[in-house]
């Protein structure tokens, strides 16, 4: 009798355990169902989509997925021997450096000046940030008018009496990108300022007191102490700027349409134009190249996380 009850109890304990497991799984089931859309997006769109793009870049697909031939690296050979693509890559480097430098320097200066306990800080912040609420299309169109030699700034300065004044960056292929940098930076400086200002406010007030007691000039304190201390904010701003630069498309269409000539074409416009002109294989090769800077960013992030985890272990 007693042995039977003992084995019975053992059995029921095992049953209880498995029942508890099942119940736990059952309670998690709604969570799994609730996040099905997320799984579809994460895997179905991002992972499979990117894989699809990369695979198609090794084919000669025109538009519809019929008669697919794998052609190896041929699309990449064509890509790098196409003048428009090579120029587009040069443009994005030039534009990217210009835009990012202008946003970081301008945004930092604005943030420093905003951080001087000024009056009407909210009003200034509103003014510096509102362009960000406007789309790149609107930004491009307004600046196109401002930079139009017949109607815009050049005409205005000439009407003041400087009849030889020339300022028409968009009319000349050599300077068109500069005009675009000014326009996109007008749109983006405010955000950089907001992020950097949050970083500045995060720096301990004691640092300022200590630097003042040591007689360190203010500019020196900013460069040698404060900027290194707010590197998190700088990194955030930088990552956002890089991600946006790689995508640059709308402002090109609105402002220059890629011209004059091909002087403001970008990788993104190359991809879209390739798809539109039924040359998908070529477009996908270009799109795959566009992934590289993003892959670099993610690798860098992993590197820093890995290094931080090493540090965390030793201390």
């Amino acid at each position, binding site marked *: 009798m007693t042995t039977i009850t003992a084995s019975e109890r053992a059995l029921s304990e095992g049953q209880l355990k498995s029942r508890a497991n099942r119940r736990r799984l059952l309670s998690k089931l709604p969570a799994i169902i*609730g996040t099905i859309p997320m799984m579809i997006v994460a895997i179905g769109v991002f992972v499979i989509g990117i894989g699809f793009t990369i695979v198609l870049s090794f084919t000669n697909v025109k538009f519809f997925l019929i008669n697919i031939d794998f052609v190896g690296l041929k699309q990449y050979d064509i890509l790098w021997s196409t003048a428009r693509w090579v120029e587009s890559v040069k443009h994005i480097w030039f534009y990217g450096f210009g835009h990012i430098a202008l946003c970081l320097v301008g945004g930092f200066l*604005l943030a420093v000046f905003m951080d001087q306990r000024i009056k009407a800080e909210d009003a200034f912040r509103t003014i510096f940030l509102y362009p960000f609420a406007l789309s790149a299309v609107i930004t491009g169109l307004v600046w196109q*008018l401002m930079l139009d030699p017949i109607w815009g700034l050049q005409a205005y300065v000439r009407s003041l009496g400087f009849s030889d004044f020339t300022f028409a960056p968009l009319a000349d292929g050599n300077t068109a990108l500069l005009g675009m940098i000014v326009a996109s930076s007008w749109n983006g400086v405010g955000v950089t300022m907001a992020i950097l200002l949050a970083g500045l406010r995060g720096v301990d007030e004691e640092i300022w007191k200590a630097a003042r007691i040591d007689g360190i000039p203010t500019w020196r304190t900013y460069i040698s102490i404060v900027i290194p201390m707010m590197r998190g904010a700088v990194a955030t701003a930088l990552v956002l700027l890089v991600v946006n630069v790689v995508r640059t498309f709308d402002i090109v269409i609105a402002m220059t349409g890629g011209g004059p000539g091909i002087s403001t074409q970008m990788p993104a416009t190359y991809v879209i134009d390739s798809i539109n002109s039924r040359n998908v294989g070529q477009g996908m090769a270009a799109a795959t190249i566009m992934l590289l800077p993003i892959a670099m960013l993610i690798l860098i992030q992993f590197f820093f996380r890995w290094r931080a985890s090493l540090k965390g272990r030793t201390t």
Partner: protein
Amino acid sequence: MSVATANSSGVEPSGPKPRRVTPGRIGIYAFLIMAAIFFLLPLAVMILTSMKSMNEIRGGNIFALPAQPTLDYWIKAWSSACTGVTCNGLAPGFFNSVKITVLAVPISIILSMINGYALSFWRFRGSELMFGLLVFGAFVPFQVLVYPIIFGLSRVGLFGTLPGIVIVHSVFGMPILTLLFRNFFASLPAELFKAARVDGAGFWRIFFSVMLPMSVPIAIVAVILQVTGIWNDFIFGLVFAGRENLPMTVQLNNIVRTSTGTVEYSTNMAATILTGAVPLIVYFVSGKWFVRGIAAGAVKG
């Protein structure tokens, strides 16, 4: 170091300290006001030009106040400006944008809210990996995914339709919104969730009775983020919306590109102002919330 230098260096330079009117203070305000003028100038040009005839703009008068302010160009841009052969102005684009925004904003927010809630309180095997992949998607340039999505949507017959463009917006809004909601739910006290569990509430019950009411503030930030983001979108509308559903930004670009002969900037700027009105109103009304949205969107990495 002598006391004198310490004192003098405490008075002269700027730094986050209050002080009286000095040349330095004037310089600060001069810089900020110059910057403010630079930022406001394009908006002023937009509004002024839209209320002037082309004759009035001629000869470098883009900054001058209109002699006879008129709203004719606004009306023309709204109802009769031409895109190609049709001359219906921006109005159809406006209503398309409203349709797209009204559908895509709640869908993307509700889905992301559930994601954030599940990721904070109901982690299961692989949930963090899913989240990582999703956030990775926020970095990917859209152009990389354009063709795969065209292909996928065509297969289910939704390419170039209203549901199609709504799906695309929901997909691309999801990474940043999920991050937003996950960070918000993670900041809530865990006891709240545990208490509801002890009372026997399940996944959906806790979501609807506890979490949803608490997440109103963050949901407002999400709405602002999505309304401005979707309204300002150009490339998705251009590629996925189809001819019947072109959003306002695409319509605006088409109107501007259609002008023949001399560019009619008055109409173009009126159209620009009309297209920018919705996000500008959202921005000026929401103020600090908008900044919070930017900050929340920026906290990745």
